[in-house]
């Protein structure tokens, strides 16, 4: 009985954790090309979800709404890159941290006023009826999260490996200066990474909203955990985020069960600080050699 509850909690937690992993994957995309991440990524997830909700309310079918939401996310990602990141990168400063926080705050306030402060349900054609698999209940909705996460990560990885543009992406990630010398515009590649990262954030919003509802505060709830996953796994760990995301999701679901829901976030945060202290490059990350 007890083991079954633990199993159940761990499985649904792990499936939620895939959403954190997906957002963390969005961090990796921009970190690879520009060594920067969007501190307002949670707000990007949130406004994309709200925008998709509006598309649905306008009568668009689910399968037409998803591309619309992804496009919106990509555009917002480009806005962040242009307004918050590019200048700081040109000046080789870390101003992007503050600027991306600021832009996130602006998005938050805009969403609050355009769509309201309340949490709203997000309609979806996918059923929430549980199915029994190996003694635990899993809903189709939860499974759709897993399918969506693996699909987009797989597609982007294929894109990076198989297309010319993707190879340019990899080249800039490996060595920005050398790529520039080979005629690849690093600015455009950074833009591409922010666009992709925005789409990934939008998909995370579309996948998670039917389960958690949409509201302005969903941003802060998601972002801290996504940060934890990204840092614990390592910002260049590739699929490491999936493992860490599932682990963290399961852990937090168990923590909220045993310690009370107020402590839900604690394990992730403690894990994050520990990981930063013990392995700043992450569990799956590569250690960098300092050069002078």
């Amino acid at each position, binding site marked *: 009985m007890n083991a079954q509850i633990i199993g159940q909690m761990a499985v649904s937690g792990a499936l939620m954790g895939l959403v954190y992993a997906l957002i963390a994957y969005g961090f990796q995309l921009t970190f690879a090309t520009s060594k920067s991440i969007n501190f307002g990524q949670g707000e990007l997830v949130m406004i994309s979800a709200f925008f998709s909700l509006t598309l649905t309310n306008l009568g668009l079918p689910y399968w037409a709404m998803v591309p619309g939401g992804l496009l919106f996310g990509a555009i917002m990602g480009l806005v962040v890159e242009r307004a918050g990141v590019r*200048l700081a990168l040109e000046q080789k400063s870390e101003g992007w941290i503050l600027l991306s926080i*600021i832009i996130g705050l602006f998005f938050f306030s805009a969403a609050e*006023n355009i769509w309201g402060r309340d949490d709203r349900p997000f309609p979806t054609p996918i059923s929430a009826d549980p199915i029994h698999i190996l003694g635990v209940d899993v809903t189709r909705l939860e499974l759709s999260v897993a399918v969506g996460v693996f699909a987009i990560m797989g597609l982007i990885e294929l894109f990076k490996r198989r297309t010319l543009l993707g190879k340019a992406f990899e080249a800039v990630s490996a060595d920005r200066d050398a790529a520039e010398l080979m005629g690849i515009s690093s600015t455009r590649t950074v833009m591409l990474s922010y666009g992709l990262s925005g789409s990934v954030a939008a998909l995370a919003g579309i996948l998670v909203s039917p389960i958690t509802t949409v509201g302005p505060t969903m941003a802060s709830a998601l972002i801290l955990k996504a940060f934890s996953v990204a840092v614990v796994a390592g910002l260049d760990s590739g699929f490491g985020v999936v493992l860490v995301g599932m682990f963290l999701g399961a852990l937090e679901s168990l923590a909220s069960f045993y310690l009370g829901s107020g402590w839900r976030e604690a394990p992730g945060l403690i894990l994050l*600080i*520990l990981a930063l202290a013990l392995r*700043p490059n992450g569990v799956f990350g590569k250690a960098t050699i300092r050069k002078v």
Partner: protein
Amino acid sequence: MKRILLLRGAEFLVFALLATIPKFVENPYALGLLTLLAIYGILLIGLDVTVGYLGQVNLAHVAFLGLGAYAAGFVVTKLGLGMVPALLAATLVGLVLGGLLALPALRLEGPQFALATLSFAALSTTALNELEALTGGAQGLSLSRPPLFGHNLTPPLFYWLCMVLLAVVWMLMRNLLASQWGRAFEALRDSPIATDAMGVGTYAHKVAAFALGSSLGGLAGGLYAFNFQYLQPQSFTYDLMIILLLGVVLGGRKSLWGAFVGASVIVLLPNLLSNRLLFQIFSGLGFAGALAAGLQGLYRKTTRPFQALAPVVAMGLLVVGGLLVENTEDWRKAIFALMLFSVVVGLPEGIMGFLSTFLAKLFRVPHAPLPEPADIDTMLPIRPADGSALLVLDDLKRYFGGVKAVDGLSMTVRAGTIHGLIGPNGSGKSTVVNVISGLYTPTAGTMQLRGVALPIGSLYRVAQAGVARTFQNLQLFGELTALENVLVALKGVYRNPLPMVLLGLARREERSAQAQALALLELIGLREQALVKAKDLTYGAQRFLEIARALARKPDLLILDEPAAGLAHPDVLQQIEFIQRIHQRGITIILIEHHMDVVSELCDTVTVLDGGRIIAEGTPDVVQRHPKVVEAYLGQPPQPELPGGAEPLPA
């Protein structure tokens, strides 16, 4: 002197004015705002230590405000103690928790640091909410303002208390930040590696700076608790943190006045937002200011188009939004965001940064005169060059994965000599230097300085042991002046303990430090440029300054890593002369260099590396003729029957 008088006079005037206000103003609302101004002033001075001086985005400051507030509340309500223990406890909580957070966060830079502080802030909100037995949880905690030394603290008295504390904090911090400590904080921001290599521990300074800033956050929290007399965890969230950052950035980083201006803005902000007319006036002024500055920047080509136009667009949005939106209060976060954005992009120095440049131009206040340079012979006495073994490397190895960068190097550097270390690119020269100076840990082998094992894998401890180095890719403290760059590294002058520094009783040693630093600058011909920021020096001067800074360590062994790299020919000659001057003082030098003329001119002994191993050693003449050396540099010797044209190689 005039400058000091002006600055002190302005400080005195403002504090005197603020102190007399309750005598004339009876309005409790205004008094409340002024009290908050003092509290936020202390808070922002603390935040400026990390954000301004260390240059890190610190998102945990609001947590220290909250923790300090709750600590004070706990001491008063649960322990029944008075005001003084409560404020002490609040400060202590900030100091200790700040130090504890800094310990893991200390290896981190930039985004990772921001993340660690963000997590800490979220964690402390969770704790305040959930530890209901201590904090009252979401219900909040009510407390009353205990008397101070038997006096009941009426609003004016409490205001004076806050102001006195602000004045005290102000004075202590002014002394600290103008001292070696403040310089070390700034040096850390510009180059942590060089700070360590100059024998200034990044470890201790980063923790100290963070703990100090956090303790001020805690103190401000204690005052906050007694001001509002009701605490709720929701008061100390991310939103407030953003406002605090707005205060520091808008006021101006690295400036006490900036913190003060920032605090005033924060205090007035709610009024600004609730009054429509006021908001429109201020947003209009902001727009006009951004437009004027942007156009000027574009016209003079001092700013990039984005930097000039983005603030105009943001302020324009603020103006248009102010006209369209019914309730500006609803949009307060967006308004903060637009204001912060404009400031960060368009006015990165903040209001005080802008004003101080402006005022300096207006009044042309000269810098306080510098002392006469110290006597170089007393500060850097000539050492006898006895030729004894100074540095002995034995079978030193450093592998990177499968790459054997240094593979079994044994070498002896004799006291008083210039020992050249040459070799083709990738031969392992820089790795050797990085291993000796402690940046890398050797894979195997031993290193001895004067027969004592050299510390391993710590730039800081190697520097303390008497080894100084320069960097091939310059690692100067760009925002500091040439003089300050040398001062940071200066050894053996700063002896006064922290309390003396805080109280401003360490002026004398500062003068003698300046005199010594000037003597070193004179040695390498940079005395006239002592007050120029390092980043504004010419490339050649920057290379010279690196050497002066390393000399400030008064080292037994000086490692020069390609000191002539990228220098124009006249500068190379100059550099050779400087190195000879240093050599005449009996300082042992390891010289890594590509210019063969420099090597043969200067070196007593040359060690040639290839593939991480020694291929030749001896005097420059001998080494230059060594067939293996020729082969390493030029490839296989040409076959004799090849058609001529090439110069014959020395046999």
